[in-house]
């Protein structure tokens, strides 16, 4: 016996949504669920492409009304000036309220100590979790995607955090249908990831379709960089280069945007969205593998940071 498949062409059905429409509809549903069920939600907004797409989706979800959330940025003190400028411009443009938690202030106050390697990314966890407690945020949107990293692949769309913001991957709620369970006790909060099911390429295709403006550093430009651990880091006051490292001017762009001390640039001549998308589609390296120093620290670096409260 041979069972014959019923073969249909997916384009036959006029009611089939495109993959971008499906992902958009799902993300909007998630934003509205949070608006309907939580008292004090906040969107983590760094000025990076994922948080920019999140903000765009939130604006669409509640139009023509304003989005019912405030924004929170954890500023490491080593952020790219172009990105901070973009952040402030977008906040003003949409009349949003932005909270800033500053790693530099924590270091200046003696509450955090600079690491010997100069990387500030792991230092974000304390200001982030304290800001959540201080403002009593009960839902915190993050732009994390499951395709980024194998610990993130285990993350729920609604992910409960205890009063210390800790993630326990072995005690997660099963996520059934589209019925997100956001119940939490006072002091606990829920991390919400509307872009869970998006890939890097989906994000770029959506940016192109929706004509979303991005900070310039996502496109190829000449910049003074130096090599460290196989990546091009931007030279600057934050602590690079060391005496043994030399600066050169290269044509580069950024695939991710984070702290200058751990976000690497890639050699690229992609100056347009089309060129960026072609470059990513052809790339044989993952986004974080190509550009993130902190993920290379150990096999479980992301999981360990997430357990402590990092995104």
């Amino acid at each position, binding site marked *: 016996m041979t069972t014959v498949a019923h073969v249909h062409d997916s384009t036959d059905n006029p009611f089939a949504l495109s993959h971008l429409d499906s992902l958009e509809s799902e993300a909007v549903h998630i934003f509205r669920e949070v608006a309907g069920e939580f008292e004090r939600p906040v969107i983590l907004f760094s000025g990076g492409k994922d948080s920019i797409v999140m903000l765009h989706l939130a604006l669409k979800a509640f*139009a023509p009304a304003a989005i019912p959330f405030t924004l929170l940025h954890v500023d490491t003190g080593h952020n790219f000036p172009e990105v901070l400028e973009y952040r402030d411009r977008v906040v003003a443009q949409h009349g949003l309220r932005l909270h800033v938690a500053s790693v530099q202030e924590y270091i200046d106050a003696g509450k955090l100590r600079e690491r010997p390697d100069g990387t500030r990314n792991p230092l974000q966890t304390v200001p982030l979790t304290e800001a959540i407690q201080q403002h009593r945020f009960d839902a915190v949107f993050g732009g994390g995607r499951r395709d980024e990293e194998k610990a993130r692949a285990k993350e729920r769309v609604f992910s409960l955090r205890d009063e210390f913001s800790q993630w326990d991957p072995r005690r997660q709620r*099963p996520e059934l249908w589209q019925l997100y369970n956001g119940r939490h006790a006072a002091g606990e909060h829920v991390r919400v990831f509307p872009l869970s099911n998006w890939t890097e390429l989906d994000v770029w295709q959506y940016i192109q379709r929706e004509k979303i403006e991005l900070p310039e550093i996502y496109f190829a430009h000449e910049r003074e960089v130096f090599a460290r651990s196989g990546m091009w880091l931007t030279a600057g006051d934050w602590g690079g280069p060391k005496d043994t490292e030399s600066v050169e001017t290269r044509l580069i762009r950024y695939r991710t945007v984070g702290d200058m001390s751990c976000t690497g640039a890639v050699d690229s001549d992609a100056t347009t969205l089309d060129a960026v998308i072609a470059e990513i*589609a052809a790339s044989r390296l993952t986004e974080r593998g190509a550009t993130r120093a902190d993920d290379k620290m150990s096999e479980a670096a992301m999981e360990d940071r997430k357990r402590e409260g990092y995104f």
Partner: protein
Amino acid sequence: MSTSTEQLSEQLAATTLLRFATAGSVDDGKSTLVGRLLHDSKSVLVDQLEAVEHASRSRGQEAPDLALLTDGLRAEREQGITIDVAYRYFATPRRRFILADTPGHVQYTRNMVTGASTAELAVVLVDARNGVVEQTRRHAAVAALLRVPHVVLAVNKMDLVEYREPVFAAIAEEFTTYASELGVPEITAIPISALAGDNVVEPSANMDWYGGPTVLEHLETVPVSHDLTACHARFPVQYVIRPQTAEHPDYRGYAGQIAAGAFRVGEQITVLPSGKTSTITGIDALGESVDIAWAPQSVTIRLADDIDISRGDLLAPSGDAPATTQDIEATVCHVADRALAVGQRVLLKHTTRTVKAIVKEIPSRLTLDDLSQHPNPGQLVANDIGRVVVRTAEPLALDAYADSRRTGSFLLIDPADGTTLAAGMAGESFATAKAVSVVEDEEGWDF
């Protein structure tokens, strides 16, 4: 235009999204199949492979262990097992895929229920040497219970049975008969060798007697949306949008994701549970005004009358509105470590509405292995599937799960700490029919 640019623009053209789940125990070769789908669709990138090779070497393994691609947690890698559902993403020029990768042997049922709840297709793996075993029947039963529209039976390890057609045909026949009886609407059986690559992505040269598609070809072509005319239109209200600005002083829109069917401007709708009626005057599809919208689009609906509607209400066409009820009979899969007992007070989350409820009865518990029924178990524990009768504090507009996966499903939640206790499917299922026949057999005095 160079060939690679042409390929790229083809790949980036409008594609659809298929969500599917895999089911199979460790020895059936599920990791190998998932690894091959990811690898052969070029979704495994160099740095990921290098990380796997490095980790495999440091564990003293000679060949790269592809399971390390998917086991993301420290504990999973240490123990060499998959603890929880993970979601993977890959794409071909024809379609994008979200794969719910469900572990085969730990806390089995709730994981597969989780993966299957959003899946439009389930791949059930069978070892060709062993044929349909208890585990296979369990996979088929969960797929049937969750009403996954398409089931693929992948008869794996055909290389170990000399690629013989009769071996495949016997397994396919037995599985198809069993799954059809459970109500699985469409079954496609494919003979494969995940290890050798037969019929996974490339057609097999070893099985010229097989005329059907490869696994990937089937995944690429299976229809992803259903006949809208056969669906009852349902719109759970998520959020009321009222800007109250100078530009939009009177705008009042009901935001939500269409759960089933389609809605049109001009249509008369009924609001449940209040029963009030109105007419749709506008549909805003995320910035675009449209005349018709369908599931699963997220939209905002505007009505002719200013009636009291809030989160948790359901809009349905006036001629096709569901009845409301406070007494719900359902099949549930228990997903928590603590038990669910008769008399317990719970919260019930249905679409956008959460209400208080009490478990009135647990008429039966199902044994998935042989589909036998145990009457009045008193409680359900982790991974149990059973029938429950729940009384809610407020009326709900529930459909049968058989009619709508979205408006027929619900969660039972522990009000004390928010733990998700059970996944519920309203109305009849094969778990009901069997219970009735058992009771009839036992009584027997009627004749």
